[in-house]
């Protein structure tokens, strides 16, 4: 009859069978509600928080379940080969989602590739080099980028970025780097490359502000130690800042990638909306989110609707997978890291 629950109980939840741990969890909750907290308010508070945290789990599960049920007809009609087919023909009700899956992954990866150097540059500059006043201003402005609605990015893309790319940047790349298959074909302006650039802009605030927080958490003594050993500024950043911040920065990148995967409006406006797998980055493409946004309102056949739900399910699974892998990697890096200290 101890008045408080030892923390060991919580730890032991992770070991043992599921039933065992469920029993333990129930006991834990009972202990908490009945014995530990004498005041009614405490109990209500505990139960309230418990409810909110369970609610998210229930929501997540029910979204997944809903998407699965809605996409059952599409799966029944074409089987799982729907993932590997690349034809998208609403007139004949034949669908394959490979091109949109490819479009989502490639445009998001492009976004991350463009955004990472930019974001890390911003984070390093504002945290390590810039005078405090300037750093505050730059940091504020970058975070302001996150507040711009995605349709505004899309419009900016159509009216500023696309003409610029079509008029000068893409012809230049085609002329000078045209021997690479990714820089071939006509310069449309819209396409995979453009959507990668827009996505990079959109995820830069996320990556840079989180990285900055991570850098800030690194003790000053580490930097001083590096400088005392005769490191240059860059060496100091590389050795004592970037190395220690690896896990955090990786987490920031994954958060950015997560946003890029699901981004709909801005991408739809500049990607050219063509469900085709082409090597050239200047060719139009299509993403999972944009095909749903494009076709859901006017889809009338059941298979079409169901296929769009299936695309949603796939997008859900891809983001889930990416985030899980990220968590795994982060926990590994962190473990290795804490081992060295």
């Amino acid at each position, binding site marked *: 009859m101890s008045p408080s629950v030892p923390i060991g109980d919580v730890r032991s939840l992770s070991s043992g069978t599921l039933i065992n741990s469920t029993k333990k969890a129930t006991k834990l909750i009972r202990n908490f509600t009945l014995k530990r907290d004498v005041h009614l308010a405490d109990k209500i508070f505990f139960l309230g928080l418990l409810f909110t945290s369970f609610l998210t789990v229930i929501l997540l599960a029910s979204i997944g379940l809903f998407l699965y049920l809605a996409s059952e007809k599409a799966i029944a009609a074409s089987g799982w080969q729907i993932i590997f087919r690349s034809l998208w023909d609403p007139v004949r009700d034949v669908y394959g989602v490979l091109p949109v899956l490819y479009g989502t992954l490639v445009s998001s990866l492009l976004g991350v590739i463009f955004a990472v150097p930019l974001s890390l540059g911003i984070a390093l500059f504002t945290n390590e080099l810039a005078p405090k006043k300037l750093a505050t201003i730059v940091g504020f402005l970058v975070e302001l980028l996150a507040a711009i609605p995605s349709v505004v990015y899309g419009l900016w893309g159509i009216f500023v970025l696309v003409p610029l790319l079509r008029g000068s940047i893409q012809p230049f790349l085609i002329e000078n780097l045209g021997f690479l298959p990714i820089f071939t074909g006509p310069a449309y302006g819209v396409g995979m490359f453009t959507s990668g650039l827009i996505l990079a802009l959109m995820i830069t605030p996320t990556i840079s502000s989180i990285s900055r927080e991570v850098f800030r958490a690194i003790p000053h003594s580490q930097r001083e130690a590096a400088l005392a050993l005769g490191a240059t500024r860059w060496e100091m950043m590389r050795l004592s800042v970037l190395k220690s911040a690896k896990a955090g920065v990786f987490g920031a990148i994954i958060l950015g990638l997560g946003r890029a995967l699901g981004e709909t409006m801005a991408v739809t406006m500049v990607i*050219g909306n063509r469900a085709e797998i082409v090597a050239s980055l200047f060719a139009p493409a299509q993403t999972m989110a944009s095909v749903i946004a494009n076709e859901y309102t006017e889809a009338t056949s059941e298979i079409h609707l169901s296929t769009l739900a299936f695309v949603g399910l796939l997008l859900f699974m891809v983001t889930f997978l990416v985030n899980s892998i990220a968590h795994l990697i982060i926990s590994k890096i962190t473990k290795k890291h804490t081992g060295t200290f």
Partner: protein
Amino acid sequence: MKLFSLILLSLCTQISFAATLINGAGATFPFPLYSKWFSEYQKINSEVQINYQSIGSGGGIRQFSDKTVDFGASDAPMTDEQMQKAGAPVVHIPTVLGAVVAVYNISGVQSGLKLTPEALSAIFLGEIKKWEDPRLTKLNPELKLTGDIIVVHRSDGSGTSAVFTDYLSKVSPAWKEKVGQGTAVNWPVGLGGKGNEGVAGLVKQTPGSIGYVEFVYAEFNNLSYANLKNKTGKFVTPSLASVTSAATASIKAMPEDFRISITNAEGPGAYPLSSFTYLLVWRDTPDAEKGGQLVKFLNWAIKDGQKLASELKYSPLPKSLVAKIEAKIKTLTFGKQKG
């Protein structure tokens, strides 16, 4: 406090005025006109308030069939399959006419591009790839056409695409076989723009491009549009009159339920890319009060409402058709009171 109670009082009176609330959903193309109609109509008849959500024709048909709204709206008539699924008899009421125009951006060519159905379908099939193709220069000897053709189409499912592909399927067997007709199709070539504004934006900026948008949209955005050769061999410029004349030419062939496609219509003055847009109502509206108000509104829309149409660049219904529609509206019942 006084002010507050005054506001509350006025709110209450407003609510009691709007005795009947009718909800509708569907096509985006006629939305500007419909919203004007509903607000104007409420000024005349304050007993009724009509809400309309422009969620797209497909969504309109779905919500109407599920009976979550009182009436639907669609650019293309419902298919037999859809009507069967609806579970009760559906009546199509044509409200106005719209047209789709082929818009282009060729430097130095402000207007006057002529296209035949064969040329248009070959461009959208990707068979004609350059403006200097003899099939195009022969039609337009006075224009200087050069450069690559960039095709732009709608990326979202839309009634506009349905009308456009319906026309191409009628005039080109190759199109019918390879692509077909629908609100969204598997386009052989080209870039996709979202919405009329997306296509217009791409065409406006891309030299050498050709796309298609609603006529209203091309007019208000100063886009150049092509003259199309119609069934009788005449090149017709899209206009309110040439669209209405496509409908007039089709009246003879008009079926009892008004479900007709008037693309590629007969008649020398008919613009071939024209189409009706419909309101969908039940032959018997379950709620008697709503049904009664809806019938009153429909009668107003096909007569007085037509005057507002041309102001907003929609083509009014031909006079001879209005009488037919009026007779149709008389057959509508509500709450099974009349039969």
